[in-house]
């Protein structure tokens, strides 16, 4: 354990308070407070427990919810077309029953994407360690928690021991100061950071996001930001808890109540990086410099301002980078020099653990209001949870979106990773609010352009990648 008298980062503090045992070689046994599971990465872990005769150490520290391959169509109550998906869903339910895990079924009003459900239920709390067999677990870092994705063997390790064997990561700070421009969102900050440091920029590090622009973000915005820490290569991303965090958590079903809540808040307030704490790496961005972002290639670091043009591989000195860009342009069917706003799209996906919270739906609805989805474009809005869906419907957002020609769906991961029926056809081009533009991510041969919900909605109504800012001004 480090000397607790010297200034420590938020990450150091959470790490230090979770060390169960430290080996001489530097590996530590770290206690895990919260474990979320879903249908895709848990079956082999349960199977491992059965084969070794092991039990869950602390079932009350777990919740389970199916999300990755649930259908998003309204007929899902009666049918799941894909028999393999059906088996995974049934296996999750059976395992939760056998091992005594709190399970939220597909048709429950609380069902949704794991990283949206956890915070909504107050399961995600500041200062905790949170894991899930899903890389976007970094989302929960928005609450000042240490949250990260793990593989299935580690899922099994946590199930059996409530711990993980880990080495301390390095500390990295990404500071964004100033005020965001009109029409610029948390998603644009997330993409701009990845553009600045690359998809391996955070490897071996835990990022703490600081600065006035980060403080200014809502909890939803902070979740969007931390969600994509993994796309910057970081083990986790985090934002220190503040009054917004406490207000968000108060009254949530699994959050502490009454006196315990007050006691918890007093503790959470101490979870700040100390003045003078050391960061191994620091990056500073100015919010004013960030324009709405769009990816053009097949890695999240292939990102530019919407006002830019498709880059030319010939301009690149690094051989590997040049080869990667040539490959990306070929896959994406793009010519160097083409203005991004001249790229036509055929599909729009508004959803995912990055951007399927109430604010994201509102943002899309502002643009959709009084407009129509362009001819030949199919646009999908998939709320992140049943609770988000219900709130959006209470606010009438579903009516605005469907009147504009958007398809309003049931919650799930959907076209972010195309494990259910929602996917791109080969060569189909999509404006997407998700987090990965990898080859084949949204369906084999599909072409993904990542952007914010407002930008995706703008693309839906024009049929092209579009700078949303003039449309927002028009809207008033």
């Amino acid at each position, binding site marked *: 354990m480090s000397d607790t008298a010297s200034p420590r980062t938020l990450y150091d503090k959470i790490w230090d308070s979770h060390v169960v045992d430290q080996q001489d070689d530097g590996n530590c*046994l770290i206690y895990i407070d919260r474990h979320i599971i879903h249908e895709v990465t848990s079956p082999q872990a349960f*199977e491992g427990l059965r084969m070794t005769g092991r039990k869950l150490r602390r079932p009350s520290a777990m919740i389970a919810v199916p999300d990755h391959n649930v259908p998003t169509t309204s007929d899902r109550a009666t049918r799941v077309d894909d028999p393999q998906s059906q088996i995974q869903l049934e296996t999750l339910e059976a395992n939760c029953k056998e091992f005594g895990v709190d399970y939220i079924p597909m048709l429950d009003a609380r069902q949704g994407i794991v990283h949206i459900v956890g915070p909504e239920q107050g399961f995600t709390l500041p200062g905790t360690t949170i894991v899930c067999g899903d890389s976007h677990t970094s989302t929960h870092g928005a609450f000042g928690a240490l949250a990260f994705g793990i593989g299935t063997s580690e899922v099994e*390790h946590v199930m059996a021991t409530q711990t993980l064997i880990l080495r301390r990561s390095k500390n990295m700070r990404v500071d964004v100061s100033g005020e965001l421009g009109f029409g610029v969102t948390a998603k644009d900050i997330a993409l701009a950071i990845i553009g600045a440091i690359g998809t391996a920029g955070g490897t071996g590090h835990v990022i703490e996001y600081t600065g006035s622009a980060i403080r200014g973000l809502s909890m939803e915005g902070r979740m969007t930001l931390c969600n994509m820490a993994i796309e910057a290569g970081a083990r986790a991303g985090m934002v220190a808890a503040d009054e917004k965090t406490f207000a968000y958590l108060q009254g949530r079903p699994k959050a*502490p109540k009454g006196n315990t809540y007050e*006691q918890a808040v007093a503790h959470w307030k101490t979870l700040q990086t100390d003045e003078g704490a050391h960061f191994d790496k620091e990056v500073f961005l100015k919010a004013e410099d960030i324009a709405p972002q769009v990816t053009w290639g097949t890695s999240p670091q292939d990102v530019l301002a919407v006002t830019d043009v498709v880059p030319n591989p010939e301009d690149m000195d690094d051989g590997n*980078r040049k080869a*990667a860009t040539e490959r990306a342009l070929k896959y994406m069917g793009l010519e160097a020099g083409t203005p991004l706003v001249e790229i036509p799209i055929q599909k729009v996906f508004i959803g995912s653990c990055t951007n399927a919270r109430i604010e994201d739906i509102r943002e899309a609805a502002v643009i959709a209001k009084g407009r129509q989805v362009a001819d030949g474009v199919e646009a999908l809005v998939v709320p992140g949870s049943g609770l988000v869906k219900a709130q959006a419907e209470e606010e009438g957002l579903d009516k605005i979106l469907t009147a504009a020609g958007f398809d309003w769906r049931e919650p799930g991961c959907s076209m972010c990773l195309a494990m259910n029926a929602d996917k791109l056809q080969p060569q189909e081009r999509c404006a997407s609010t998700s987090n990965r533009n990898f080859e084949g991510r949204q369906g084999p041969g599909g072409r993904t352009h990542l952007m914010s919900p407002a930008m995706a909605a703008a693309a839906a109504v024009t049929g092209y990648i579009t700078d949303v800012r003039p449309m927002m001004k028009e809207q008033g």
Partner: protein
Amino acid sequence: MEKFTTIRSVAAPMPTINVDTDMIIPQQHLKTIKRTGLGKFAFSNLRYHADGSENEDFVLNKEPYRTAQILIAGDNFGCGSSREHAPWALTDFGLRVIIAPSFADIFFGNCFKNGLLPITLPQETVDKLMDDAGRGANAIMTVDLEKQEITGPDGGVVSFSIDPFRRHCLLNGLDDIGLTLEKADKISKFEETQKATQPWL
């Protein structure tokens, strides 16, 4: 887990940077509830054409690389999704060693749980091994985890370093859950203290 011994094999070159886990095992093959049998889907979008026929340009479809146990890879290998299906697919395909300038954190950790050895070396060293791997049938390399040495086709030796605990587990095929359970008392003690100081957890 199978013990990791010395591997002597042809090494396949894959210089592409940022090879993500979606590329290693696409989402359509994640709908299994087993760990086994994923080798035929490793790199499936690159390995096969849409009609299911083999893409003869893909390195692992070429002789002698079809039976390679060693892969020389580009920077940031294994980025993206945490899916352990990626190392499951690679080991089931037959790979036992991946050498790259850097790996994404989650994939790196997942490898060790599955008897797959990820070796990080400086870019220029990987570049040299990449050239060596391009020599086809002559691209025979030996990876000795005990000595932490790679012997190239021309007899040149490159040293590498692996976390001692992980090396120990690989060499002895140890199940780390079993090792952790030996510390159950310490875990219980931690839980008691935490319950007293943070009753909301």
